[in-house]
């Protein structure tokens, strides 16, 4: 028995979750790149 209603309920979570991961990751990449630039002379 497949539960399409529960699937529909979880689809937005998949979208938001993946979007959230990429946003957080993007911020971390940006910060690390910045840190590397600032401290490159050390």
């Amino acid at each position, binding site marked *: *028995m*497949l*539960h*399409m209603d*529960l*699937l529909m*309920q*979880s*689809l937005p*979570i*998949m979208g*938001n*979750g*993946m979007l*959230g*991961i*990429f*946003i*957080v*990751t993007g*911020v*971390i*990449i940006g*910060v*690390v*790149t910045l*840190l*590397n630039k600032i*401290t*490159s002379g*050390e």
Partner: protein
Amino acid sequence: MEVLIQNFTDITLQQVIMWIIGGVLIYLAIAKDMEPTLLLPMGFGAILVNLPNSGAAAVIDHLFEIGINQHELFPLILFIGIGAMIDFQPLLTNPKLMIFGAAAQFGIFFTLCMASLFGFQLNDAASIAIIGAADGPTSIFVSQMLKSNYTAAIMVAAYSYMALVPMVQPPIIKLCTTKAERKIRMQYKGKPVSKRTKILFPIVVTMIVGLVAPDAVVLIGFLMFGNLIRECGVLNSLSETAQNVLANLITLLLGITIASRMSAEEFLKFETLLIMGLGLVAFIVDTFGGVMIAKIMNLFLKEKINPMIGAAGISAFPMSARVVHKLGLEEDNQNFLLMHSIGVNVSGQIASVIAGGLILALVGG
């Protein structure tokens, strides 16, 4: 004599099946060297709690209550040890590798949908999905926070598949890539990373994740605290203790404590089989997600990436990085992908914890 006979007559078929499952876990740990630090205590614990009228069940239950159920202490403390073990240098040298770590969490969210489709309630579906984090402590933490009814099955699946990474990933990677793609060589530009960056990295990541997913800040916080101890340079003995004694001690207790959820009546359900299947789906889709994002990036990059390194974005560290490196060498014995895949692999560690946090934030802890 009557008591002795009573104990024998109290043995149920389900308990015997659990002894066999316990025996299989012990066999896999010893003979196949599959995650022995966890599978062996879990296997032994499964036998221990499934003896008729077992006096050990209450003690292990108590350990579960104080170590996992109340504040998820064991997995969190273990994270300090794991953080102290991880060298983020390959990632800090090339932070863009984190994209693969993020993409390789797709299996988690895909599995969440699949588990929902099979009728699991959202809290259970999310807990099952987190098997795809390929990270035992995160799986325990999330499933406990979400009050899942299937913690034991989730644990067994998470640790079993982590151990099975060398068997699960290669066919998927080969299926998603061409021979020419697998032969792509990548130059490693090992740029030095300053000590200041290494120290600031765990602090900054904790703050970023804390602001986005406050529920999960404890996860990333403990991981990064361990890493800060490692990188600060003034707490070497604490770092060594965290990496060895602390991590070993907690792992020892964690395995046998999880076994408290492996009583026959709790474990032997059709859902357990379904969870094992969904866990496998999570690992497969994680691998697929990581490889595919690399292939997509290659459409736009001049200097091509070997798409296999995307597969190391699952958190199973360092098995996944080794798998990718080995596959690279199989195609071309001068193709050394280890440093790239290690970088992706540690980024997967961070991304899986972020995924756990987002699951908690979106599904509700």
